[in-house]
């Protein structure tokens, strides 16, 4: 993958166009736009504000490599406040005002579901998102949307299986009262039944400002050995775990992707004590400090040191940023492939190219080569948090579901 090869291919394409094969129908635009909606305000503001600079990094690094066939890319980031309707308005505005929009990055389960039926014909773009909702990995219904990791259902399955392996027999599901929180419940119930684990409590909470004492009381009374938390980012889950620890509950807590951020875990540890010690969860990616044999991570780290000095991103890339970067690298790869094949950068071509990605050496994100299957990458592993070292360390091997 070098510049020369790409420029060689581009020359080839130009040459074939010159001899009359109508390979590139549209004139080459001056840039390609990667639009995005991020929750820079609202309940998930912390995440959105850290992802925005990561997109800038993605843009710079992609352009160092020649963009898409020599045409530079440009990323845009707009705030959605984690309100699906705002994100939809952002997308529609981008469609109407950016003629070269080739890719869009959405920011919530709600938005992705809201926009899915709009993605038809002229209005369709390849679309990644911060969400791992199962419904988004259905190529037959939503060919243009994909997950850069396993779905929440997969993550639940993984956690439930690891509970079964440890000989656990009861589990509680605590989830935020949002699409994000509810997404994997049904399949989780079924999986638990299949594994012979009893779901002793299903508790819905507010996404922010939940009534912690009451929820903890219910958890205490349910006597669950394990508790899976779903649908939280910065709030609620740390307080729940803190409350349960103060009560002296022996319950083991587990989380999915969005509840696995080191920054939040560290903040809890600093502010409230070592409550999160032993906390387990699924993470599709390697943490950014785990950078042996990871050329891509090394490149990111170099860029971060230079450009993000003095910010939390100087020496660490949050998992939220990694997810966005991974999703956008996949999108970029698909679009480059479309370009190399000399086809137009339509959503259909891009989706087709994306689906053909097999055995991708991600150079950091995943510990093993991964493949797009059914518009998702079902690979991940279980990590455990240690309050002493402030690190999430692997508690299982890589596995692909």
């Amino acid at each position, binding site marked *: 993958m070098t510049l020369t090869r790409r420029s060689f291919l581009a020359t080839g394409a130009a040459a074939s166009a010159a001899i009359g094969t109508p390979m590139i129908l549209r004139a080459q635009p001056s840039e390609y736009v990667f639009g995005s909606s991020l929750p820079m305000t609202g309940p998930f503001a912390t995440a959105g504000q850290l992802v925005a600079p990561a997109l800038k990094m993605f843009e710079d690094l992609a352009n160092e490599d020649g963009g898409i066939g020599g045409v530079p890319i440009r990323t845009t980031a707009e705030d959605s406040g984690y309100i699906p309707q705002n994100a939809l308005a952002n997308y529609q505005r981008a469609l109407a005002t950016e003629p070269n929009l080739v890719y869009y990055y959405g920011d919530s389960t709600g938005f992705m579901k809201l926009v899915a039926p709009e993605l038809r014909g002229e209005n369709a773009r390849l679309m990644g998102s911060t969400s791992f909702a199962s419904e988004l990995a259905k190529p037959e219904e939503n060919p243009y949307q994909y997950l850069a990791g396993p779905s929440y259902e997969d993550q639940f399955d993984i956690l439930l299986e690891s509970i079964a392996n440890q000989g656990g027999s009861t589990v509680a599901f605590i989830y935020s009262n949002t699409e994000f929180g509810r997404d994997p419940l049904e399949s989780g119930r079924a999986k638990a039944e299949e594994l012979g684990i009893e779901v002793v409590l299903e508790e819905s909470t507010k996404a*922010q400002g939940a009534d912690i004492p*009451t929820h903890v009381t219910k958890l*205490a009374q349910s006597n669950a050995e394990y508790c899976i938390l779903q649908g939280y980012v910065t709030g609620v889950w740390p307080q729940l775990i803190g409350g349960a620890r103060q009560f002296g509950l022996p319950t083991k807590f587990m989380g999915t992707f969005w509840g696995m951020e080191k920054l939040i875990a560290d903040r809890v540890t600093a502010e409230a004590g070592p409550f999160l010690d032993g906390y387990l969860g699924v993470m599709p990616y390697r943490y950014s400090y785990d950078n042996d044999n990871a050329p891509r991570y090394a490149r990111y780290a170099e860029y971060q040191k230079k450009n993000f000095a003095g910010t939390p991103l100087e020496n660490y890339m949050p998992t939220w940023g990694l997810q966005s970067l991974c999703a956008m690298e996949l999108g970029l790869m698909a679009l480059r492939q479309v370009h190399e094949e000399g086809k137009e950068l339509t959503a259909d071509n891009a989706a087709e190219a994306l689906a053909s990605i097999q055995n991708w050496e991600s150079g950091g994100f995943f510990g093993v080569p991964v493949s797009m299957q059914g518009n998702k990458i079902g690979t991940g592993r279980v990590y455990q948090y240690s309050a002493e070292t402030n690190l999430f360390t692997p508690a299982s091997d890589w596995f692909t579901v």
Partner: protein
Amino acid sequence: MGQFLQFAINGLMSGAIYALIAVGIVSVFKATKVVNFAHGYVIMVGAYFYYTFAVLIPGAEWAPAWLASWQPGWLMEMREGLPMFSPMGAVLDWVQNLPRILFGLAGAVLANAALGLLIERTLMRPLMGQSVFAMIMITVGLISILAGAAQLVWTADADFVPHIAPNAPVRFEMFGTTIFLFGADIVNMIVALLIFGAIVAMVRFTKSGVAIRATAEDQSTAYSMGISVPKVFSRAWMLAAATGAIAGAILATRNGISPSLGLFGFSVLAIVLMGGLDSYVGVFIAALAVGVLEAMTQWQLGGDWAEIVPYVAVLVVILIRPHGLFGQKEVERI
């Protein structure tokens, strides 16, 4: 039965906090006849002030070390060899945090009182004597202004604040079930009840309390009797904002700090109308009743049902008693 008791107590504890929030709405209404739809957001700003003075400032480099974490020798000695999560450990943690908690509370109360004064001067005073609709809608507009300003200043980050009391667990047996309570919650409840009681006593017995009541009765008569009505107005707003700051701090310790704290204002508004706008007793009863009802709903039906309890309750009460449980019937001239 034990379970019932557990949730009843939980309900009473959150009810007491509702009462503390409600007291702000009632005080402002009594003095100025304005129902503050934005009170929840005043509280949210109060919570962020607490966060500023208890977390951000002590965490700053120029702040003295004892403010962030007070570590006298005897405290360090006592800490030695204590197991994690022991009740004693919780108390010691609290002692360590005490300077910044007190600093935070004092800062939040003062800053929020100043905010109350500012709102009263700039928005409310020009509206004296305007229609109910204009007053309500001004406070509705205030909601957006406060929410936006808080996001601008504090970037809407969800964060953690120190508990205002040692958060040791309390556990006891009753009717064969173990009842769990959080130490901090019990203290919060006591604080809320004390403040509520103090304000009711103040309105009853002190001179400025009498002025508030006189203004509530009839503004122009009060004016002609030598009471400075504008002063009563600004005092009521400052009082509401100051109690709001404490309520905000408590809510933030319970639920984590976030802009969504403002939403509590709407359910408390429903509670206030249920109790009857100008009656402290009625509002107190309504607050506890809704707190308990919410906890029971949470227990039996789950968290999402609990969210609409105050709204259903207020609709039922208003339909049966249009002026709330203990509200005064308005007399209208035609």
